[in-house]
Structures are given as structure tokens and as C-alpha cells.
């Protein structure tokens, strides 16, 4: 899943006191309306995660459609730190997420600023920029696998026009991770752009008029008016894109499958290999729990950044 939307402020200000009348008093319907969502979340998120947690202390074999479990204690967790693939996956994922999201932020902001300056063609630009968000990650992998092909890919062809020798972008370990990062920047810059553009469009206009009357240059207007006002949007977008970039799987699966060597091994892919390819369910569960723990840490950082940015705003 590459779900993008950020949780809104509104979603986290629930249950404002109902005023007057009987709104909100219908006990039966209060439960009828809430229980399907509650049921799904309990059955399909809480229960599986509990199951995952239990499995992480066990060895599991499938026999005749039934799981045969035996106790493994803490052995799986003890084995994690020395798993070379897992370590490569973790460090690559951090490098990938940080560099890709930074690139997306800078380019997205630049595009949003430029787009907010034009009146003609804004809708058309936006339509084109949105396109990558709507394409399946796996197809983005396919598109760039063709684009970056050594023999006939458009990238090498174009570089050839200006006299640069063809390069095996995905096959060489020095450029494989870089290529994956660039593909992700291509994929998600549009999303940052869209949020920033919406942020800019919702800024109060009178500050800009005041700045213009005071004779501010375009740079001063950006540096001292737009940028400070956008800081909350920027921080929140950065934090949440970072956590979501941590999930990367689809593009890597098709572009490089973690290779060459471990140069593009990312954590989701390691998880997939251990759990599904090697069928090590107990060990894979332990790795899942570890990854979820790391993501939760990131989330705590993200939420405190959000709180701080709310305080700024």
C-alpha cells in the first residue's frame, strides 16, 4: 500500500460536545455506526499483530493447512542483530528514506512556489504532476526498469546524445541505490508538491500585499513571509513522508530485488524474503515486530515534531 493522505487535524479533534437537542444520544445507533470499523480494526489489525507477537517466540511449520508451533524462546530476537541482510536492509532503508524524502521536499517546494505564481495552465500542470501518485508502484518499477535499461533505455540514449557513455544504472552496485532513490523522488515529489501548493494557496493574501507594498523582493517575500508560514506544513509532510518511505517495497521488488549484492536491500524486502521465500515464519514474525517497533519510534518523533510545529503555528 502506498496510501498517501496525511491524517487531518480534524480527525484528531473528535467528539466535540454535542449541543442542544438529542444529537448523539441514540445509544443503539451510536454502536451500530461505530462497531463495523471497530470490529475490522480489532479483527484485522490488533488480532494479527498479537498473533505476530506470539509467533515471534515460536517455530512454525505448516502441515495439512494447520500451523504446528513449538517454543523457540528469545532465539529469533537474539539472531536479529547478527543477520547481515537485516542490517543491510535497515541501513539502506534509512539512507533511502532520508535522501529520497529530502529530494522530494526541495523539489516539491520549488514546484509549488513556481506553480503558485502562474495563473494560466495551473490546472494542466497539476494534472500532469499528479500522475505518478496514481500509478501502481510496481508499474513505476516496470517503467523505470525500461527507462534505465543498459541497451535501449531512454536515460542512456539521452546521455549518449551529449556524449556520455552508457551506464548500467541498476546493475552496478555504486548506482543501484541512487537509482532507486531517484525513482522514488520521481514517484513522490508530486505528492509533496500538491500539499505545498494547497498550503500556499491557503495562506492569507494580505501579508503578501503588505510585503509587496513595503517593496520586498521575490526572494525576501519567500524567505521572510512564505517560508515561515509554511513551516508547519513542511515539518508535518517531512515527518510523514519519512515514515511512509520506510515502507518501500514495490519499486525495489521489481527494479533490483535488493541487489546487486545487498546494495538495495530494504527492510520490507528482507522481511519478505525471510518470511515468505524462506518460509521462516517465527523468525520473520520477530523481524516484523522489530520493524514495527522501529516505525513506532519514528512515529513518536514525527508526532512530537507535529506538536512542536502546531505550537509554532
Amino acid at each position, binding site marked *: *500500500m*502506498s*496510501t*498517501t*493522505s*496525511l*491524517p*487531518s487535524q*480534524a*480527525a*484528531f479533534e*473528535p*467528539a466535540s*460536545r*454535542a449541543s442542544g437537542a438529542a*444529537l*448523539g444520544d441514540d445509544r443503539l*445507533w*451510536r454502536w451500530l455506526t*461505530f462497531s463495523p*470499523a471497530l470490529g*475490522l480494526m480489532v479483527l*484485522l*489489525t490488533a488480532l*494479527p*499483530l498479537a*498473533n*505476530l507477537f506470539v*509467533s515471534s517466540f515460536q517455530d*512454525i511449520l*505448516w502441515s495439512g493447512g494447520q*500451523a504446528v508451533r513449538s517454543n523457540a524462546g528469545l532465539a529469533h530476537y537474539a539472531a536479529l542483530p547478527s543477520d547481515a541482510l537485516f542490517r543491510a536492509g535497515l541501513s539502506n532503508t534509512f539512507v533511502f528514506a532520508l535522501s529520497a524524502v529530502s529530494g522530494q521536499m526541495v523539489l516539491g517546494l520549488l514546484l509549488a512556489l513556481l506553480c503558485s505564481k502562474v495563473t494560466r495552465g495551473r490546472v494542466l500542470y497539476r*494534472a500532469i*504532476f*499528479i*500522475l505518478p501518485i496514481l*500509478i*501502481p508502484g*510496481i*508499474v513505476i518499477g516496470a*517503467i*523505470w*526498469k*525500461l527507462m534505465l535499461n543498459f541497451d535501449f533505455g531512454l536515460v542512456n540514449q539521452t546521455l549518449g546524445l551529449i556524449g556520455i557513455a552508457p551506464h548500467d544504472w541498476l546493475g552496478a552496485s555504486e548506482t543501484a541505490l541512487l537509482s532507486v532513490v531517484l525513482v522514488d523522488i520521481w514517484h513522490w515529489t508530486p505528492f509533496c508538491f500538491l500539499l505545498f501548493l*494547497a498550503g500556499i494557496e491557503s495562506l492569507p493574501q494580505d501579508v503578501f500585499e503588505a510585503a509587496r507594498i513595503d517593496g520586498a523582493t521575490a526572494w525576501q517575500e519567500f524567505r521572510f513571509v512564505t517560508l515561515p508560514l509554511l513551516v508547519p*506544513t513542511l515539518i*508535518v509532510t517531512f515527518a510523514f513522508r519519512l515514515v511512509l518511505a*520506510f*515502507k518501500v*517495497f514495490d519499486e525495489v521488488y*521489481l527494479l533490483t530485488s535488493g541487489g546487486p549484492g545487498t546494495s538495495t536491500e530494504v527492510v*520490507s524486502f528482507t*522481511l*519478505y524474503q525471510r518470511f515468505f521465500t524462506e518460509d521462516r515464519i517465527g523468525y520473520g*514474525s520477530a523481524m516484523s515486530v522489530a*520493524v*514495527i517497533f522501529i516505525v*513506532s519510534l*519514528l*512515529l513518536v518523533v514525527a508526532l512530537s515534531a507535529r506538536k512542536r510545529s502546531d505550537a509554532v503555528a
Partner: protein
Amino acid sequence: MSSVAVQRLRSALVHAVLIGFALLIAVPVIWTVAAGFRTQISLLMGDLFFTPVFFNFGEVLFSKTSDFLVNYRNSLIVGITSTVLCLVVATLAAWSLHRMRWPRWIPNIFLAWTLIFHMIPPVALASAWYTMARTVGLDNTFTGLILAHTTLNLPMAIWLMSVFVRDVPKELEEAALLDGASTPVLLRHVVLPIIAPGLAATAILTFVFSWNEFAVALTLTMKQTATVPVAIAKFAQDFEILYTQMAASAALSILPALLLLLIAQRYIVKGLTQGAVK
């Protein structure tokens, strides 16, 4: 230079940069779609101009070894069903959490949990779902994948619908109650018409994300139930050198998104930005 000329020059520069970026985004997609209309030889030769052929699309859609039409149908079944389910569940929950008198901690904890769940890598979940689905016999069924996609998209749908539900004037709901409307009547005749545009925006995004989802579909489906992304990944790995057919199947798989972008850009933008801005 007069100030009008400076203004013109600046605007031209801005447009030039924007067009440059638009090309960076559009060209890879166009080039890949075009590759679907080429012969393998023409692609390998790298000719700029070529006579379009429909061979690749024919092979992808109708050859005996290809299941692409089945995959397309599967993706539609899973996408549409999970979208409808997700919208009903999310809208009811959003309305309930924001308009019914719950003790504060219930919505707070529930919404925090949706946020945490949204951040967990799908592969980690896929492993848990796989074990569960296999135990109760739902692996390799549409039901399993539909439930999984509904759950995956539920957090986003609830956040979005929360925004739209809160836009419904409270006075209107209270007036309806005073007139003796029951809760179902209130939902159907007062709330629903007002949130309809928001529902459309949420529906489009939910469908697109279900259509695009790969990791969970990969683990919960087999040959008969595989969705389009799973099929493309398999094709790319099994027949790595059939480049033009890979391009053709990529082109076919982005058709729904392109159609939605053409007819409903407004709703897509609304859905993608609403949660963040409000």
C-alpha cells in the same frame, strides 16, 4: 527594460521551468506506453520514429499463456468491493465518532490506533494476515484480499470522511432530529447529500490505492486470484526480456488511473490535500 517586459520575461521563465518538470514526469510514461506499440527490434534499435503495432497488446490480452484479462477482472472485483465496504464502514465510523456522544477517550484511542496501523509496513502485516488467512482457509480467496484492502484503506478513509462529516452544519442535523427524524433517516436524507462530494473524492482514492496495492496481494493470492500488479511483477521476473509486452501491460494497468485523472481531477486533488490542510 520596462517593468511589463520584466514581468513577461519572469513569467516565461517560470513557465519554462514548469514545462521542463512536466516533461520529466510525462516523458517516461509516454515513452513506456509508446514502447508497448513497438516491435522488440524497433525498441532495441532505439529509433525515434516507428510504425505502431498492436502485437504486444494482443499477446498480453489474448494469448493462451496470458491471464491478464482475468487479472484485470480480479483487480476490478477487489477494488470495487473493498472501496464500497471501506466507504460504508468509514463514513458511519467518522459520523459516529464526531457526532455521537462518546466518552472522549474512545475516539482518541481509536484514531491514534488507525494512525499507528497506517505506518506499519504492509509486508509486516502481510505476514500476520497470511498466517491468519491460511488458518481459517481464506488464503487465495477474494474475500481475504477484499477484507485486507478494506482494512488497509480504512484509516485514510476515516480521516477524510471525518473532515467532510465535520463540515455538515450541526444545526441542520439538530433540526432534523427536532422534526422527529430517526438516525437512519437523518443519515440518509440530511448527512449523505451534503457529504456526497467528499464521498466521491474518498472513493476514487480508495479504489486507486486498492488497484495499486502489491505487497499484500502478492502474499494473499495465487494464480486464479492474482491482481494486475502481481501479474506484472510475475511477468517481469519470468519473461524479463519481453520488454515490449511488459510496456504494453504497464500501459493497460494505468488506464483506470488515467481515466479518473481526466474526469475527476478535482476530486483527486480534494482527497489528497484535504486531510493535510484542514
